[in-house]
C-alpha cells in the first residue's frame, strides 16, 4: 500500500514536469494574446482583455491572412487525397518493384530540405508568372503533406484482408466497386487521418508560402512572422494570430487521440 502511494506520487511529479514543459510556452502565448496592459518590469500582465483580437480583425492584411489560410487548407487536403488514395491503394495491394521504388522516392522527398525545393521552384514560378498566385500555392503546400498522407493511406489499405478484394472480384465487382464497397468502409479512418495531416500541414506551411506567395499572399504563419521576425517586434498581435492556428491544432490533436486512434495513439488505448 505504502509503495503504491509512493509510486503514485512519483507518477504525478514526472507527468507534471513534462506537462509543464509542454504547456509553458502556450501559457505565455495566451498571456501575450490577452494582455492589454503589461509593464516591462512586471512578471504578469496588469489587465487582460480582447483588445488584440479586435485589432487583428480590424486590419485588412490579417483578415486576408485568415481567408487565405483557411481556404487553402481544405483545397490542399482535397488535392492531396486525390493524389494519394489511388497511389496508396496500389502501394498497399501490389508489393512489386514499382511500389517500393515509389515509396522510396516519396520518402526521399521527406529528407529534402524544403527550402531547396523552394529556391528551385522560384525561377519556374517566376517564368510562368505564378509568384503570388493563390492557386499555385496548392502544389507547393502539397509537397510536405504527401509523404505523411500517403503513408497513412497506404497503411490503412494494407490492413484490409486481401481475401475480401478477391472475393468481391470473383463475385463480379468492378475495380471501382471494390474500392467503394470494400476498401472505403474499412479505410476511412486512415484516409481521414491522412486528410487531416494535409490540412494541418497546409495551415502550418511557412517557407514556401514566404518564397512563392508573399508579399501578395500572406497566410497566417507569414503574418505571424512579420510581427516576430525582422527588427520591429510586436508580440501581442502575433500571439493573437497564433491562437487561431493553435486552437485548430489542439482540436486536431484531440480528434486524432479520441476518435481516430491512428499512428499517433499515445497511450490512448
Amino acid at each position, binding site marked *: 500500500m505504502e509503495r503504491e502511494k509512493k509510486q503514485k506520487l512519483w507518477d504525478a511529479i*514526472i507527468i507534471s514536469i513534462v506537462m509543464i514543459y509542454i504547456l509553458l510556452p502556450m501559457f505565455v502565448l495566451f498571456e501575450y494574446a490577452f494582455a492589454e496592459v503589461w509593464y516591462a518590469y512586471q512578471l504578469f500582465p496588469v489587465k487582460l482583455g480582447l483588445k488584440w483580437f479586435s485589432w487583428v480583425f480590424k486590419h485588412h492584411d490579417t483578415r486576408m491572412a485568415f481567408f487565405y489560410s483557411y481556404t487553402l487548407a481544405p483545397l490542399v487536403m482535397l488535392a492531396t487525397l486525390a493524389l*494519394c488514395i489511388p497511389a496508396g491503394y496500389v502501394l498497399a495491394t501490389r508489393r512489386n518493384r514499382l511500389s517500393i521504388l*515509389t515509396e522510396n522516392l516519396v520518402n526521399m522527398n521527406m529528407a*529534402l*530540405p*524544403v527550402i531547396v525545393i523552394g529556391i528551385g521552384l522560384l525561377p519556374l514560378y517566376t517564368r510562368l508568372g505564378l509568384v503570388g498566385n493563390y492557386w499555385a500555392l496548392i502544389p507547393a503546400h502539397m509537397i510536405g503533406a504527401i509523404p505523411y498522407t500517403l503513408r497513412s493511406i497506404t497503411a490503412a489499405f494494407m490492413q484490409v484482408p486481401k481475401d475480401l478484394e478477391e472475393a468481391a472480384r470473383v463475385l463480379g465487382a468492378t475495380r471501382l466497386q471494390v474500392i467503394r464497397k470494400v476498401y472505403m468502409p474499412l479505410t476511412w479512418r486512415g484516409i481521414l487521418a491522412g486528410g487531416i495531416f494535409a490540412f494541418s500541414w497546409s495551415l502550418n506551411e511557412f517557407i514556401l508560402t*514566404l518564397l512563392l506567395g508573399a508579399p501578395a499572399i500572406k497566410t497566417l504563419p507569414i503574418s505571424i*512572422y512579420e510581427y516576430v521576425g525582422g527588427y520591429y517586434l510586436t508580440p501581442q498581435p502575433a500571439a493573437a494570430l497564433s491562437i487561431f492556428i493553435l486552437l485548430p491544432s*489542439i482540436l486536431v490533436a484531440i480528434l486524432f487521440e479520441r476518435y481516430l486512434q491512428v499512428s499517433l495513439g499515445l497511450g*490512448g488505448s
Partner: protein
Amino acid sequence: MKITKEDLISIIFLLPLYIFLIVVVFIPLVNVVLGSFGISLFGEESRLTLEGYYKFMAPDSPYLYSLFFTIYISAIATVISILAGYLFAIYLTIKKPPVWRRVSTIMTIPLFTPYIVGAFMWWTLLFPRGYISLVINGLLMRLGLIHEPLPLVNDPYGIGILFGEVWIRFVIAVSIFYGPLQMINPELIDAARSLGANTWQIITKIFIPLTKYSIIATSAIILLATMAGVSIPLVLGGSWPQFLNVMIYLDVTTTFNYLMAFTSGVFYIIASATLGYIFFRFTMRRVIIQTR
C-alpha cells in the same frame, strides 16, 4: 516483357503522383543542381562556372561554417530529444501511470503546432524578460558563474534554436518510440524481473536491442527534420552563425545571389540525401513493421 492489365492499372493510379513529383520536386532539384554551375533553366542568361563551389569551399567561407553549425546544432538537438524521449517512453511502458491516459492528448499538441508559432512561443520565454531567461540567468548570476545576463535567444551559440527544436522533437520521439515499446512481450520483462534483473538491465538487455532499428530511424528522421526546418532557426537563431537554410533564404530574398543559394542547396541535398539514404535504406522497412 509483357505489360499486364494489372501493371497498367498500377501505372494509371500512380501517374498523377509521378507527374506531381516530376514537376514540383524533380525539376526544381535539377534547376538547383544546374544553377549551381551557372546554368539557368528558366532565367535569361547562362554561363558555365565553378565560382559558387570555389566560394563555398574557401577556407574562410561563411557557407561552410554555416553547414557545420547546422549539423552540429541539429545533432545536439537530436541526441537530447532521443534520450529524453526514449527514457520517457520507457517510463510510460514500465510504470503505466494511470494519470497518463487523461493527459496524453496534451502531449500531441506540439506535433500539430506550427513551427513558426512554436518558435515564437519560445522566443517569448527566452528573450531577456522571458520567464526562462529570468530563471536561468538569475540562477547563474546568484551562483556567480556569470556577471551579466546570457543571451538565450538570437544568440551566437544556438541555444535558442536548441530550446525550440527539442520541445517539438522530444514529443515526436516519445510518440514514435511508444508504439514499438508496447509491442514487446510483457512476459519478457516479468521473466527478467523474476530472474533478478534491475530496471537498468531491463532497459539495456531487452528494450534497446528489441527497438534498436526504431531508435536509429527515429534519430535519422529527427536529425533530418531539424536540419531542414527553417522557421525555428529563422526566428530563434542569431545574426551569426546561421543555419544554412537561413543563409539560402537570405541569399535569395535580400541579395538575390542565386548562384550561392543554389550551391548551398546542392551541399544541403548531399548532406541530407546521404543521411537519409543510410538510415532509410537499412532501417525503414523494419521500422514500418515494428511501428505498425
